[in-house]
């Protein structure tokens, strides 16, 4: 009996420690992907089943765990569009319309498989709790649960390479466990001081035959004032480049 009590006591002590490890690992994966505050350039490519492509180029700035802004540089029809994320708040500034309007994380300002949450993705650690951590040979498999209802995907399954602790594949799921989309991380490159995947591809059972790709360039650690991430600051993001 005494042995059983000791066994369960140790198990109870060990469980939170294991959960903490999962969260620490998620934090480490976030930091391996990006510095906490950085600027970067991205190209989004939507590919239709017949091979037709549509490309968007964005300049993105992030600070801390809850601030991010993206400016469309191309194509000409979208140039100047700016999306801002401040925690759970998201806005879109369309130059013609002239004022920022609130948007939701499930919308997509670019069409295709990527939605606003993918384009304005903050740290996973800021939005998700690690419910379970599994050892899958060369990979860790992290089962993530959204911390709040405002997060675009209720559940995430994240496969991370054990060696470099970078994501290889992410499955985005609904609360009921239905697969919304899968993100594939490829082409690990050095960005001057750290290495991370330079290509992210995605497909979705909801958009059969369609594929979207995100390419990353010039990811650089950089600090910004909080005032950059305000509605008044949205129209002047280009001045940061």
């Amino acid at each position, binding site marked *: 009996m005494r042995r059983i009590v000791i066994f369960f006591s140790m198990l109870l002590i060990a469980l939170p420690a294991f959960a903490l490890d999962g969260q620490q690992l998620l934090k480490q994966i976030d930091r391996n992907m990006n510095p906490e505050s950085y600027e970067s350039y991205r190209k989004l490519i939507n590919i239709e089943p017949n091979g037709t492509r549509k490309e968007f180029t964005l300049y993105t700035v992030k600070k801390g765990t809850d601030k991010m802004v993206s400016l469309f540089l191309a194509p000409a029809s979208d140039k100047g569009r700016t999306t801002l994320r401040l925690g759970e708040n998201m806005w879109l500034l369309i130059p013609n319309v002239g004022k920022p309007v609130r948007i939701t994380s499930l919308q997509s300002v670019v069409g295709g498989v990527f939605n606003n949450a993918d384009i304005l993705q903050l740290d996973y650690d800021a939005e998700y709790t690690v419910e379970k951590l599994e050892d899958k040979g060369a990979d860790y498999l992290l089962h993530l649960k959204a911390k709040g209802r405002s997060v675009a995907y209720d559940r995430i399954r994240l496969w991370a390479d054990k060696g470099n602790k970078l994501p290889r594949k992410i499955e985005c799921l609904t609360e009921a466990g239905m697969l919304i989309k899968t993100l594939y991380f490829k082409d690990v490159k050095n960005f001057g001081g750290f290495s991370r995947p330079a290509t992210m591809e995605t497909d979705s059972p909801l958009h059969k035959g369609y594929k979207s790709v995100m390419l990353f360039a010039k990811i650089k650690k950089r600090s910004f004032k909080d005032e950059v991430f*305000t509605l008044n600051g949205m129209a002047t993001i280009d001045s940061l480049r």
Partner: protein
Amino acid sequence: MLRLLFILLLASVVQVSAEEFSFDEAEIEKKIWHLGGYAEARPGLNLLDQSAAQSRLRYYGRHVDDTLPDFNGKLLLEGSLEKDWAKLFVQPSLDYTNTRLTHDLKLSWYEAWLQAKPNEHVKFLVGKKSLRWGKGYAWNPVAFFDRPKNPDEPELNLEGYWLATADLIRSFDGPLQTVAFTPILLPQDHDLNHEFGSSDHINWGGKLYFLLYDTDIDLIMMGRGSRNASYGFDFSRNLTTNFELHGELAWVLNSSRPVISATGQQETVSGDAVSWLLGARYLTEQDTTWILEYYRNGNGYTRSEMATYYQKVDQAWTAWQQSGASSQLQRLGQNQSYSRPAAMQDYLYLRISQKEPWDILYVTPALTSIANLRDGSFSISPELVYTGITNLELRLKGTALVGSRRSEYGEKPNDARVELRVRYSF
């Protein structure tokens, strides 16, 4: 040999797939200047209601068919020059209109301003600028320093006013995340901003913005000058990941409007006017966006005022037909207040758009309706937008105006309109 051929083939495939997604850094190189804009063609066909009041006032004495084609063209250019903390921006628009009755070519400077941004906390701007204040989609009663937008085309560029403004911004941790103050000076005389109101005033006002508990809040005011003193409030908040709520409230002191009396004379009715708007935007799991807004126009005409006006137009029309005297029609036609968008008091705006139905990428059908809740008349506009070709947008839009005689939409000049818009951005 076969193996070598296979390896070469494989290498070439790898090469192709590696080149499949390229990101040339020259694409993101920043220039100090930018030149862009769009060219647009909008051929349209109007089905006229020749017995409608607005049609009689507009076309009396001229022969018009029941169908009236028109062509509108637009060249909107944008140029900017940016160096360090300074930016110069100009946006001229060349607009061409051609119908069987008239043609017109007009150059307008929508915006032309110089901005200085010494740091992230402050920026100054002087020049011509459209401010677009307010949170409403179709209407903005708190946009005191803007030209009224057309609820049928709320996303079109608007011509600004010449003004001087600044933004003072502070961010914080905690429930109050941002505070921004935007003061405005808008001079007005017979040469500058003459459409703004009565002349020779330095108009002033401002906006205080808060992001508080994840809610955008604006407090707005305009001092008495070319227009009457006005106070405004607006808010916007995402209640869930797919539901946004917004509203505006505007209080205009001693507001006035011209009213045609029962004797046919034009009188001025004055009094404080409170206008407000409540709206929501909802995105379904099927990617359908619903925008719904209720608008109360505190300075709008009552149903009896509108009925009197239509009665006077009928009488003026009869007088013109019987005696050829057009003075009454002329006088009534000069009063633009009755024919402006949302001229009455209670309106409902509904827009339903479906993004990429049946997985057809870049196609967005939409249905928009504006209803006058006082007289039951409404407009309904189905449209189809295609953006699959880079920088080219095609939009086919039809509008039907439905209403009984002496109702707002029943007395508009058109029964229906169909329009193709082809816009190329560069």
